[in-house]
């Protein structure tokens, strides 16, 4: 049973997707997605335990032995990502019970759940696969269903946002494909472990550098690394609340994980950080993202767009951690990846709650509502302080680890960028607080009641972020084992 879990957790959501279409009923489709998410989470939890106790698991799909067949690998470096993705799916499933009803009509709701199942399956597959071409296929499965989900957003602007995401995302994925093709031309293999062994022998081949560049640029587009982030604000800002909550916690994070995986276990740190200046470029992009995107976030008038811009800044932090190439840096990046997934999911969930209760997430519409909706805004403030990195929230733990890794590596300019970005984060979170508590209410309309499912998800996510801040043992141990597995090439 355990031997089959790596493939099972991908197959459950993929198999549930057509069921959602066939059932055609909102409640049944919801139940199927919830079951798929819970099933994946259970698999991920068992796998994480298994990997921690007995080391990496390998699964040959269809019984074809690698390097010829497709191989799924579960090791220290991807169990945190599996837990984050499947956990976010469970949160999104519960949250959607209240949220989807208000945003999407009965006819389309089962389709939304289909896309959620497909995205979940695609992201999990992308995380566990040990084959680069298979990774491209899973990347496209998750991306295509994401484009369709974004287009289901309540405003008509969701459509151009989805189209833009489709064009940019497809160019990015095709870049990854070119890179895979070049790597295949150099080595003649697609299995990641086999590629790593043969690439080490084929050192200093120009086609190899080109392969790495294409793959990294393509993945940077998918991860919304500054300055390739143009699709993200529209996609997160216009998507239905359930979708933005799920995506904010997962899609860019998985792309960053694949970046890590290919850097350390396929191309090798020596090539990427030694021969090629990828580390320096990553630090530069990360530092710029942290400052520029936070600054843009300060001037947003729409709460969801504000959060989306803040995501781009946080991706910059994670990228900077990875780009250091040291054990401390990678482990800090993983820690921040886990914590930020929880924090940003709770913030997007809270924004969705505001949208349900007020019918708008424009900051001007929030004026003076802090007293009328104290709990909703309290959640936003606690999670927002996590974004700023105020102790004892989870954001502090991640930023502290990242700051010490940067100091250790002597990257002072990036550290300064991070501090400036945190101050700017204080600025935009402060703006929400100021609008909600210290402005006169714009309208006298009473906010409508909050659906219990949505409130519960918001508070559970906020509570998790606080627990991770107070006692960072669980995420820190996951992050450390991930960094160890990546840097020692384990797997």
């Amino acid at each position: 049973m355990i031997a089959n879990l790596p493939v099972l957790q991908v197959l459950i959501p993929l198999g549930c997707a057509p069921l959602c279409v066939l059932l055609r009923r909102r409640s049944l489709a919801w139940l199927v997605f919830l079951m798929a998410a819970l099933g994946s989470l259970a698999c991920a939890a068992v796998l994480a335990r298994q990997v921690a106790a007995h080391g990496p698991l390998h699964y040959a799909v269809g019984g074809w032995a690698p390097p010829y067949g497709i191989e799924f690998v579960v090791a220290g470096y991807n169990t945190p990502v599996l837990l984050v993705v499947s956990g976010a799916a469970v949160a999104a499933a519960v949250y959607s019970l209240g949220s989807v009803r208000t945003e999407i009509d009965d006819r389309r709701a089962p389709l939304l759940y289909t896309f959620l199942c497909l995205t979940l399956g695609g992201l999990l597959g992308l995380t566990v696969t040990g084959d680069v071409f298979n990774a491209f296929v899973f990347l496209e499965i998750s991306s295509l269903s994401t484009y369709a989900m974004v287009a289901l957003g309540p405003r008509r602007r969701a459509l151009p946002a989805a189209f833009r995401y489709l064009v940019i995302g497809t160019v990015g994925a095709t870049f990854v494909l070119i890179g895979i093709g070049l790597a295949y031309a150099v080595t003649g293999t697609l299995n990641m472990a086999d590629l790593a062994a043969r690439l080490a022998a084929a050192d200093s081949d120009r086609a190899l550098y080109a392969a790495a560049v294409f793959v990294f640029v393509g993945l940077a587009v998918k991860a919304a690394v500054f300055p390739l982030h143009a699709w993200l604000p529209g996609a997160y800002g216009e998507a239905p609340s359930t979708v933005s909550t799920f995506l904010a916690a997962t899609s860019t994070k998985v792309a960053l994980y694949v970046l890590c995986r290919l850097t350390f276990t396929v191309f090798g740190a020596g090539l990427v950080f030694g021969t090629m200046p990828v580390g320096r470029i990553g630090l530069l992009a990360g530092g710029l993202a942290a400052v520029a995107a936070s600054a843009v976030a300060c001037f947003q008038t729409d709460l969801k767009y504000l959060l989306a811009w803040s995501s781009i800044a946080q991706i910059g932090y994670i990228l900077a951690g990875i780009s250091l190439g040291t054990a401390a840096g990678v482990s800090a990046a993983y820690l921040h990846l886990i914590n930020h997934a929880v924090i940003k999911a709770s913030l997007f969930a809270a924004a969705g709650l505001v949208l349900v209760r007020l019918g708008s997430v424009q900051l001007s519409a929030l004026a003076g509502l802090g007293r009328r909706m104290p709990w909703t805004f309290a959640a936003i403030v606690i999670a927002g302080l996590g974004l700023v990195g105020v102790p004892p929230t989870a954001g502090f733990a991640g930023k502290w680890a990242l700051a010490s890794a940067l100091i250790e590596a002597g990257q002072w300019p990036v550290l300064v960028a991070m501090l400036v970005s945190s101050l700017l984060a204080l600025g935009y979170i402060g703006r929400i607080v100021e609008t909600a508590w210290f402005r006169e209410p714009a309208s006298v309309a009473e906010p409508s009641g909050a659906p219990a499912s949505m409130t519960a998800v918001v508070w559970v996510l906020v509570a998790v972020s606080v627990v991770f801040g107070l006692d960072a043992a669980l995420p820190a141990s996951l992050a450390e084992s991930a960094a160890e597995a990546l840097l020692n090439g384990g797997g």
Partner: protein
Amino acid sequence: MSGTHYVYWLLFALMMIGLYVVISHGNLLKKMIGLTLFQVSVFLFFISLGKVEDGSAPIISPEVETYSHPLPQVLILTAIVVGVATLAVGLALAVRIFEAYGTVEEQDMQERDEDRHGAAS
């Protein structure tokens, strides 16, 4: 080297033409055409990697001794399916955009969104 590898030069030129169409045109349908051109040229590039000199199509036959590499072709079969799905989603979105905005020009869409905003506030 450039003599034997001219096909790669051609295919990369084709890729860049596709990419340029995506960037330079505001019409969503033209963007999709450019995107498809870009993807297809990458597929061709992949397949051309598997060509073995004097190799025949990889179908077992007693008269043939050298075969081209079949694996890239199989992989690209999958990638073509992905490409078709992308095209379908993109065109479906373009139809929805036309229904919602009455245009498929990016510039006009932006103007109409701003008009509506101006009217609302």
